[in-house]
């Protein structure tokens, strides 16, 4: 049937054929406006502005099991709703209909004469007079039994997904805790404190730290960051942590400890799935001659430690040239040795802090940065381990959602001898 209108108009026989066709259609449809209204495949309802039912079609009466006389003039539309639906109608449906002149696709339940409930989708429009005054409300009602069953299923699936997510978050939080020491070791003559900030409970982060005794009054400490997140990162974190502790017993020289970790990571994760981390390892020994402690730090690609001195100054302890651990078979590790005098505080951190977005709204906005952290430390010094950690926690709170990676911080402080306190 791709005739153009020109062709149609050009042939009287064809006009006749077309008229025949139309007559056939009409006979087939047996249609009148009245029948279209009464027996439409949806419910029709006209109500006055106060909701009183003025007209209702046969389809809806059949669905609900009412006689016309039972509804028209006697009941309001909201009388057909469940009580909860009536509340919804009064607080949402009716106000929106008044303000917008129409509202569509609202899911409600109608009560049939026998008490059965019929899930429906309701659309209403306000008929207005020529001068814009509202006259009456026209409503169509669609049977939504199948659709509502489907929606209920979707809703149930969503609730289940939310429950699963909460369960996963609890699991992640628990797993994270097992990767950290439950409490830091008590080192005689040192004040120590640490904090682990979880950026998101959706995935386990890869930051780690520890502080533990070695032979003859010496202590080992480390803080690192495994590349990546999730279960694989957690496995590497666990491996790194026990390797570092074992390696430190075998040979406590900090560069040797990291060299051994490098060998283990290369061995375990060779080939197509290399795993690497940045880490700083320190060996603490009491300085019996001058007081305080000596600390030798070895860094494998990790952000430098911060020294906050008793005199109120602060500096990074740079270890230039230290390479990532786990990438190359032979790795360059940089070390530095510093004396922690009474009143000094050493801070180790992971880059979750310095990489935090200052403006949490911006996706690629400005980062907090090393300079800001140095200024922060400079303002804080002289300080103690616990004060440092509490100030860092406040800072993390302030940065809020801008901190999008996990952050670990470990602070050690040599307290002033008691006799010096009054000076």
């Amino acid at each position, binding site marked *: 049937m791709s005739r153009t209108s020109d062709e149609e108009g050009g042939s009287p026989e064809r006009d006749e054929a077309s008229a025949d066709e139309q007559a056939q259609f009409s006979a087939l449809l047996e249609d009148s406006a009245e029948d279209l209204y009464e027996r439409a495949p949806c419910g029709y309802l006209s109500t006055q502005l106060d909701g009183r039912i003025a007209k209702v079609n046969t389809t809806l009466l059949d669905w609900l099991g009412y006689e016309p006389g039972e509804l028209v003039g006697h009941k309001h539309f909201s009388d057909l709703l469940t009580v*909860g639906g009536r509340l919804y109608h009064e607080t*949402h449906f009716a*106000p929106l209909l008044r303000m917008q002149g129409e509202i569509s696709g609202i899911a409600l339940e109608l009560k049939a004469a026998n008490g059965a409930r019929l899930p429906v989708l309701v659309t209403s429009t306000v008929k207005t007079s020529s001068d814009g005054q509202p006259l009456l409300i026209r409503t169509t009602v669609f049977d939504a039994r199948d659709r509502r069953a489907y929606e209920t299923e979707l809703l149930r699936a969503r609730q289940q997904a939310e429950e699963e997510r909460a369960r996963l978050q609890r699991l992640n939080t628990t797993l994270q805790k097992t990767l950290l020491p439950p409490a830091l070791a008590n080192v005689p003559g040192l004040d120590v404190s640490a904090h682990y900030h979880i950026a998101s409970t959706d995935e386990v982060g890869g930051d780690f730290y520890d502080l533990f005794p070695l032979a003859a009054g010496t202590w080992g400490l480390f803080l690192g960051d495994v590349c990546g997140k999730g279960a694989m990162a957690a496995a590497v974190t666990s491996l790194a942590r026990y390797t570092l502790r074992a390696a430190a017993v075998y040979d406590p020289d900090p560069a040797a400890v990291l060299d051994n970790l490098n060998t283990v990571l290369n061995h375990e994760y060779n080939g197509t799935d290399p795993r690497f981390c940045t880490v700083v390892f320190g060996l603490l020994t009491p300085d019996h001659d001058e007081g305080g402690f000596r600390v030798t730090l070895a860094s494998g690609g990790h952000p430098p430690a911060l020294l906050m001195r008793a005199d109120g100054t602060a500096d990074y302890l740079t270890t230039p040239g230290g390479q990532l651990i786990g990438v190359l078979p032979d790795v360059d590790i940089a070390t530095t040795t510093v004396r922690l005098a009474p009143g000094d505080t050493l801070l180790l951190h992971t880059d979750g802090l310095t990489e935090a977005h200052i403006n949490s709204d911006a996706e690629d906005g400005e980062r907090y940065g090393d300079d800001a952290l140095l200024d922060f430390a400079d303002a804080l010094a002289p300080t103690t381990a616990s004060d440092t950690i509490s100030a860092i926690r406040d800072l993390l709170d302030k940065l809020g959602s801008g901190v999008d990676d996990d952050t670990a911080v470990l602070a050690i402080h040599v307290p002033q001898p008691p006799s010096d306190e009054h000076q």
Partner: protein
Amino acid sequence: MDVRSRNHVTVTGRTGGPVVMLAHGFGCDQNMWRLVVPALERDFTVVLFDHVGAGHSDLSAWSPEHYSTLDRYADDVLEICRELALGPVTFVGHSVSAMMGVLAAARAPEAFAGLVLLAPSPCFIDDPESGYRGGFSAEDIDELLESLEANYLGWSGAMAPVIMGNPERPELGQELTNSFCRTDPDIARVFARVTFLSDNRADLPAVDVPTLIAQCSSDAIAPPEVGAFVHAQIQGSQLVTLNATGHCPQLAAPEETTAAITAFAGAAR
């Protein structure tokens, strides 16, 4: 936090005129008043606001812990009054907001020239022991929550930042469909519980400011006997029954509602 943006406070009308503060109920936002505001603006300074969690309020200020009682909403009303410093206001509270006005007026009567309780109900749930009929059972409220769940009315998590990031209300013609009643489903659920499960009957006698109770002649949510109860509990209160039907006379019969507010607020100043 800036109270004005937290509650999306708008002040219009006659500068220096007596102050009428309009508080919307559960469901929509300050747009509920748009048919009565033009007439009120001629005589009064009109203060409009959205409850925290509704309309264009700062959604980040909402938390289920803080906004699980009407007291917090009443505190917000008093904070807005203090912030604006316009002197005593005639507070018009629709539906659940009527009880916020009752609580606020009991706490700081000096902030109020009068209260208009529009279609109020101090307790929606029946209490057979005392013979009080609020009209609903606790199960009915669960049904309402189901209706809320089934109808997010165009709200989606993806839309929330757009709404929050655009505090200047666009022209009404550009409003998205259903935006007056768009609410975060989590917030709507908590507010529905606060609205329909609170019992403030014992707070009514503490009201000591001129009070007008305006109820509708046929209201499925706040039936006439509830209005009569409120009237009996607040000493010296006036009760009027509007011809308007339904629960929202400010939409169904704006002229009649405006006249009732104007007559009362004009006399209360």
